[in-house]
């Protein structure tokens, strides 16, 4: 047991640590204005316009969110100016979404992303997104709707779509990872205002930190298959009716009309597995092998699905279609000079030891050739949930 003098030293030490270190800066929740979403626009030549959604707590006020927008040159001075306009101290610890305008993204956004990285209050799971027009117009959607907290609304919009695998995850961490990866380029979702609602309009493709192209939503299915393990998503394929004549069901006395000239099949993905291999080092030829298990959800015309032969036939048709689509997509990426799939990583993995700069890879990528092989299995054609 410690006796007299030991106790004295202990008390002295505790007292001095308490006195000397002082207190941590208190940030009481109800005295803060919590920034939940930020939008950045290019305003004129040299300035950026920052718009923030501030969530604040007031027992008497009805509107819990407030939108403030100011102009400045750096994001930190934007914060200073926004703070002047607020009765509560603005803090960024609850930031959920950051929106960059397309015009700004075309010039490059890495410095603005970098400030997010440097702020320890901002989490890695912040969603980054691009807006088709002004970022402020997206942020201002919340103004009309009193009950809506735009920060969480945008966050839920993206999260819901990411969780149901309609979208590649656009978190700050994912963006950083792809950006700093020599063999991969980042992608972010593109938002659009439609009839006063925010909706996802496509995927913005980045070359380094600059936006260079837009991938429409219907192609995202193939990008997801290529880029990551994918367990959901639906896609429709259109075929000529002539090709399917052999398996079309007869009328059997009943009459029905065909609405479309073409025959459409809707399938969904149960699981897919993608392997990208460098098969020819000299000519830089990649083979993309996709194993794909799917369900047939809907057909626009009745098909004879009773026999295995017919199902096999449909499988082959879909395979052919997918091979073409995916090949087209890869060529599209190649022409844009972007690599969201991470083919560069495959290349780097195959040439062992040699270091390759991003620049070298870009020149190699230009001449790369692809061959796509899809193995599709229709697991189920019957009842779907």
């Amino acid at each position, binding site marked *: 047991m410690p006796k007299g003098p030991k106790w004295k030293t202990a008390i002295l030490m505790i007292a001095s640590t308490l006195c000397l270190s002082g207190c941590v800066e208190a940030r009481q929740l109800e005295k803060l204005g919590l920034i939940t979403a930020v939008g950045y626009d290019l305003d004129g030549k040299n300035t950026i316009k920052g718009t923030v959604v501030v969530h604040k*707590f007031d*027992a008497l006020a009805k509107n819990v969110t407030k939108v403030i927008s100011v102009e400045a040159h750096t994001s930190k001075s934007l914060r200073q100016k926004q703070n002047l306009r607020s009765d509560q101290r603005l803090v960024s610890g609850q930031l959920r979404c950051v929106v960059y305008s397309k015009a700004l993204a075309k010039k490059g956004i890495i410095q603005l992303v970098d400030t997010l990285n440097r702020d320890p209050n901002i989490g890695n799971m912040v969603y980054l997104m691009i807006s088709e027009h002004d970022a402020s117009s997206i942020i201002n959607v919340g103004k009309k709707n009193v009950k809506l907290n735009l920060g969480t609304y945008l966050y839920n919009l993206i999260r819901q779509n990411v969780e149901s695998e309609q979208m590649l995850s656009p978190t700050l961490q994912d963006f950083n990872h792809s950006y700093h990866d020599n063999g991969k380029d980042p992608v972010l979702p593109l938002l659009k205002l439609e009839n006063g609602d925010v909706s996802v309009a496509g995927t913005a493709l980045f070359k380094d930190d600059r936006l260079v192209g837009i991938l429409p939503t219907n192609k995202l299915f193939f990008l997801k298959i290529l880029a990551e393990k994918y367990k959901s998503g639906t896609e429709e394929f259109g075929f000529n009716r002539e090709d399917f004549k052999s398996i079309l069901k007869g009328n059997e006395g009943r009459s029905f009309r065909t609405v479309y000239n073409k025959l459409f099949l809707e399938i969904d993905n149960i699981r897919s597995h993608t392997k990208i291999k460098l098969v020819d080092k000299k000519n830089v030829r990649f083979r993309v092998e996709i194993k794909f298990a799917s369900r047939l959800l809907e057909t626009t015309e009745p098909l004879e699905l009773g026999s295995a032969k017919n199902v096999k036939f449909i499988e082959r048709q879909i395979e052919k279609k997918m091979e073409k689509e995916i090949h087209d997509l890869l060529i599209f990426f190649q022409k844009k000079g972007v690599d969201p799939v991470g083919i560069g990583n495959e290349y780097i993995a195959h040439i062992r030891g040699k270091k390759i700069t991003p620049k070298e890879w870009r020149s190699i990528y230009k001449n790369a050739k692809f061959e796509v092989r899809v193995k599709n299995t229709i697991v189920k054609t019957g009842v779907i949930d």
Partner: protein
Amino acid sequence: MFKWKKESKSQEVFKAHSLYIDELKEQLKNELLYSDITFRHLKKNGNRIVFCFLESLIDKSSLDEFILAPIQNNEKIEWSVQGFTQVLPLSVLTVTNQLSEIISGLIEGNVYIYVEGDPYGLLTNLSKTVERGVEKPETESNVYGPKISFTESLVSNMNILRNNLKDPNLCMQDLVVGKRVKTKAKLVYIQGIADEELVTTFKQRISELEIDYVPGNTVLGHLIENNSWSVFPQLMTTELPDRISIALYRGKVAVLMDRSPDCLYGPTTFFSYFESTEDVYMRWNMGLFLRVLRLTALFLSVLLTPAYVAVLTYHYEVIPSPMLVTLGESRSKVPFPPVFETLLLEFVIELLREAGARLPTKVGQTIGIVGGIVIGQAAVQAGFTSNILIIMIALSALGSFTTPSYLMGTAIRMIRFPIIIIAGIWGGIGIMVAFCFFIIHLLRLETLGKPYLSPVYPLQWRDLGYSFFLVPYQYLAKRPQTNKPVDKERFSEKKAKLKKDIDE
């Protein structure tokens, strides 16, 4: 703090009392000043007998029936020690002439019979003690299991234990506690299971106590534990005989003390305070669930309100967005900072608990209702506290009440206050500092020379099945290693694994 001083044993005075009755009476009166000492005289043929006793302590009807009546009725017998031993229908008679022995005998309720001129007199026990009957356990009530608890009488407590454990190896060693008031006590253990060292430590600590009076077994526990500065109790008292029986067969040692309604036992590690006998009587999986529930409640109770303070004062970043609105809105009405708000409400809860415990049962219920309504409803509406804090405080109060040991429950409620304050000063770092402090403190604590956090640190994975978790019986073949039992096995592990076929 408490000192282990080697006692310099004072020589006991051997002094025979006077052979004359009048002088004997004077001597006794001088020793027992202002007491209710009573003398009854008999005369026959010039022989005088005196019966000395303390009136309040003896059973008068048995004095009349078993001592006076035989002596008066038997005319023939000789009035001497030898003659009385023939006629008195009493099982225990002590022959003595030592004054000190007579005095201590009288205090215990003996009657001293002396014939004038004889060298010796007779001392016999006719004591009458005021006792209550055996009742249901009050402080450690159980839903399941035996409904019997210890009483204030040492003899009936020993009776209960002996009846529970009909084992010839059950030892009950005599001990005397206290220097002025010599209270009887018994050191209870199972010979061949309990560690010899443990028994001697216990005995030594109690016999070397230099204190005038020990009011009860709990106080005895405070006096002989290692660190009396700690908030954590290091030796457990219980009023459940079955708890002691179970503990004895795990190699623990217990102390029964006269006039004390509970039994002290040890070594009791930190986790044994979260064991209830109910866990043993339940099926193991239910017991396991309950025990894990209690340990979770412990952590909730200690850390929930400090976490609230830290998060709302410093770390607003970690609040999940669905909770942000409700938390912020209820906080925006409160005029105090979170530390003060929390301390205030914790204080109110403690007041309620204390008031409920002190008041008579009927009024106590009203206090509960008043507390529930006033604190719950009005405080929030008046903007005194946020309603989320009310839930958290209630949760942590409930959590601390789930601990089967009342002492440990109180200790847990107490350590919450410094953690809340330091959370208000340093936030999450403060909680971590305080928590580390308590962990280090617990690591350093000992219970009768055994590490306090025992099955967890130092890790005794076989013991985990007894105290931290509960496992089916076939895995509990070994007694807990922490207690260093002499006989390590409860049953043969190999035999337990054999499955007997029906046609064997």
